[in-house]
C-alpha cells in the first residue's frame, strides 16, 4: 500500500479542523441529540397514529395560533424595533442609556412574571384593560393576548441586531445622497434600508423563532381555550402531563420541522437579498 502524500497545502487561517470538530461535537451534544430524542420517540408510533395525532383539529388550531401569532408579533417587533434602534442611534436625549438598558429587560425577566404582569394589565379590570373594555377589545384570554405576550418577549431581538448596523452607517454616505438631491425618505428607502435589511431580517427571524417556542408568558395571558387560544407548546406540555409521551413527541416533531423549514426559507431570503444580488 502506498503512502498518502503527507503534506497538504497549508491554510492561511489555522485551526479549521479543530474548530469545526469542536463545533460539530458541541452542536451534537447540545442541539442535535436532544432533538433526535424527540424524533425517536415519535417513531414509536406508526404512521397512521402519528398522522391522526398531528392533524387532530385541536392540534391544527394550535399550530395556526402559534405560527400566526408569532408571525404577527415578529412583524410588529420588526417595525417598532427598527424605530427604537433608530432613536437610540440617531438622537441624543436625556435618559438614553436608561432606555437602552430597558430594551434588554424582556430577556432577563422570568417569562412567567411577564405573563402574569401582562395578564393583570390587560384583564378587563386591569390598568390598560379597563380602557379597552368599553371599546369592546378583549386582550387577556384571547389570541390577541398571545400576540401581546409574544411581542413583549421578542422586542430586544430586532433592536439589538439593527442597532450596531445603524451605528456603523457612515454619515458621509447620507450626506452624499443629500448633496445629489435625495430627500429624507429617498435616503432612507434607497440608502439606509438596503444597508440594514439583512440585520432587520435576522432580528425578525430571531424574534419569530423565539415566539414560536415561547411558553411561560403566553400560558397566563392566553386563557388556553382549546381551539381558540391554546398554543402548541402548551398542548405538548398537557400531553406530557397525561403521560402521552409519544403524542407529545409527535406534535413536537411537526413543530420542529415546520420551524426548521421556515427558518431555512428566511435564511435563503437573506442570502437572496444580500447586496449585489438584487
Amino acid at each position, binding site marked *: 500500500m502506498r503512502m498518502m502524500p503527507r503534506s497538504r497545502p497549508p491554510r492561511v487561517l489555522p485551526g479549521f479542523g479543530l474548530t469545526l470538530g469542536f463545533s460539530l461535537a458541541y452542536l451534537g451534544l447540545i442541539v442535535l441529540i436532544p432533538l433526535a430524542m424527540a424524533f425517536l420517540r415519535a417513531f414509536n408510533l406508526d404512521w397512521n397514529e402519528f398522522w391522526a395525532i398531528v392533524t387532530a383539529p385541536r392540534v391544527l388550531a394550535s399550530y395556526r395560533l402559534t405560527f400566526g401569532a408569532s408571525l404577527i408579533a415578529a412583524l410588529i417587533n420588526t417595525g417598532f424595533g427598527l424605530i427604537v434602534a433608530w432613536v437610540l442611534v440617531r438622537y441624543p436625549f436625556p435618559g438614553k442609556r436608561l432606555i437602552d438598558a430597558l430594551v434588554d429587560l424582556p430577556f432577563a425577566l422570568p417569562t412567567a412574571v411577564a405573563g402574569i404582569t401582562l395578564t393583570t394589565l390587560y384583564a378587563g379590570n386591569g390598568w390598560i384593560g379597563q380602557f379597552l373594555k368599553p371599546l369592546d377589545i378583549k386582550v387577556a384570554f384571547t389570541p390577541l393576548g398571545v400576540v401581546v405576550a409574544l411581542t413583549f418577549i421578542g422586542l430586544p431581538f430586532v433592536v439589538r441586531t439593527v442597532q450596531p448596523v445603524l451605528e456603523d452607517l*457612515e454619515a*458621509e*454616505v447620507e*450626506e*452624499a*445622497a*443629500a*448633496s*445629489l*438631491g*435625495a*430627500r429624507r425618505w*429617498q435616503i432612507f428607502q*434607497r*440608502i439606509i434600508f*438596503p*444597508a440594514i435589511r439583512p440585520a432587520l431580517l435576522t432580528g425578525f427571524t430571531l424574534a419569530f423563532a423565539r415566539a414560536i417556542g415561547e411558553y411561560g408568558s403566553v400560558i397566563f395571558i392566553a386563557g388556553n381555550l382549546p381551539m381558540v387560544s391554546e398554543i402548541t407548546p402548551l398542548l405538548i406540555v398537557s400531553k406530557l402531563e397525561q403521560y402521552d409521551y409519544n403524542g407529545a413527541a409527535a406534535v413536537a416533531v411537526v413543530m420542529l420541522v415546520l420551524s426548521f423549514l421556515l427558518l431555512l426559507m428566511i435564511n435563503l431570503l437573506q442570502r437572496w437579498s444580500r*447586496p*449585489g444580488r*438584487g
Partner: protein
Amino acid sequence: MSIDIQGLYKRFGEFVALDHISLAIPEGQLVALLGPSGCGKTTLLRIIAGLEYADQGQVLFNGEDASRRHVRERGVGFVFQHYALFQHMSVFENVAFGLRVRPRATRPSEAQIRAKVGALLELVQLSWLGDRLPSQLSGGQRQRIALARALAVEPRVLLLDEPFGALDTKVRKELRRWLRRLHDELHITSVFVTHDQEEALEVADRIVVMNRGHIEQVGSPEEVYESPATPFVYQFLGHINLFHSRVHAGWARVGHLRVRVPEYGDAEHAPALAYVRPHDIDVLREPEDGDTTLPATVQRVSSLGSTVRLEVMQTPGGEFAEVEMTRERYAADPLRPGDLVFVKPRHLRIFLNEDPQPVAPMHWHGDGDGI
C-alpha cells in the same frame, strides 16, 4: 458660478473652527484650500456645500445668499475623501442616483439616464466597470466614480474634500493631473481641500492657505510659494531653514551676515526670524567680502535622486541648516562631512518675531516632499 464668503464664523464647543473668514472665488476657477489638519479648511468646504451651517456670516452663490439653503437645493457636487459610494449599488446605479431621485416631473427617462451615465463613465474612463460593485474597485477608480456621480447632477460648483488623501502616492499624482485636465475641459467652479502643498501647487489656479481658522494668504501658486505673506505660509509651503536674527534700524543680522530690511526701518534691536529655502543657499569654499556668508561645517550628505541635500552646522552658533543643490553642482565640487564651508543665502526673508507661536521648534522645517 462664483462663490462669495462673507465673515463666516463657526464654533464647535470651545473650538473656533472658522474665525470670521471672507473669501471670493471667481467663476470657473480651481481653488485649493490648503492648511494643516484642524485649520478649518474642511469646515469651510462643508459650509459652502450646506453640509454644515455657520454660526455667523454668509455664503453667496452668484451674489445670491445661499446660507440657509439645504444641501439638496444648492446645486453642489461633493466628493468625499473616503468616496462615500453606495456599497449596495452597482457603479452604474451610483452614478445614476442623482438622476433617479429627482421629482417625477424633472426626472429623465430611463434611456436618457443610460446615455448620461454612459457619457460620465466615459469621461472618467471607467465605462467598462458599470456592472461592478464599489467594493470591487481600486481606490483611484472609486474616487473617479465618486466624481462621476457628483457630476451627474450637473452641479454649479464642485467641492472636493481631500479627494486624493486616501490614495497612494503614484495614483494620487495621476489623479490630480487628471483632475486638472478635467477641470480645463469642464470649467466648473471647483474648490478642493488638501493638506498636501505639492498637490495644491500643482493643481490649483489659486491657493488659499489657512491656519487656525484664519486665511493666511490667497494667491496663485507662484505667489504663495515665491512671496509668502506670513511666516506660517513660509513654513507650510516647502522646506525652510530658520535662523534667529535681530533687526535694528533697517538691517537684520544673522551671525556675521547682514541683510537690508527697509520695511523694518524703525525696529530697534527687535528679535526676528530669517527664513531661507534649502535651494536658495549657495555653499562656497571661501568666504565672500561684505558679510554675505556664514561659516559652517558639513554634517551629512544625502543623495535624493536629482538633488543632493547637505546638512550644515553654523560654526559659532551651532544652528543647523539644510542645503539642496543639483547633482551636477555637487559633482563639480563634492563636499564631505567635516569640510569647512561658507553658506550664502540668496533670498533671505525676515519676519519680526512678534508672535512666538508660529515658530517651529526645529531649525529647519517642511512638510511632505521637497519642492
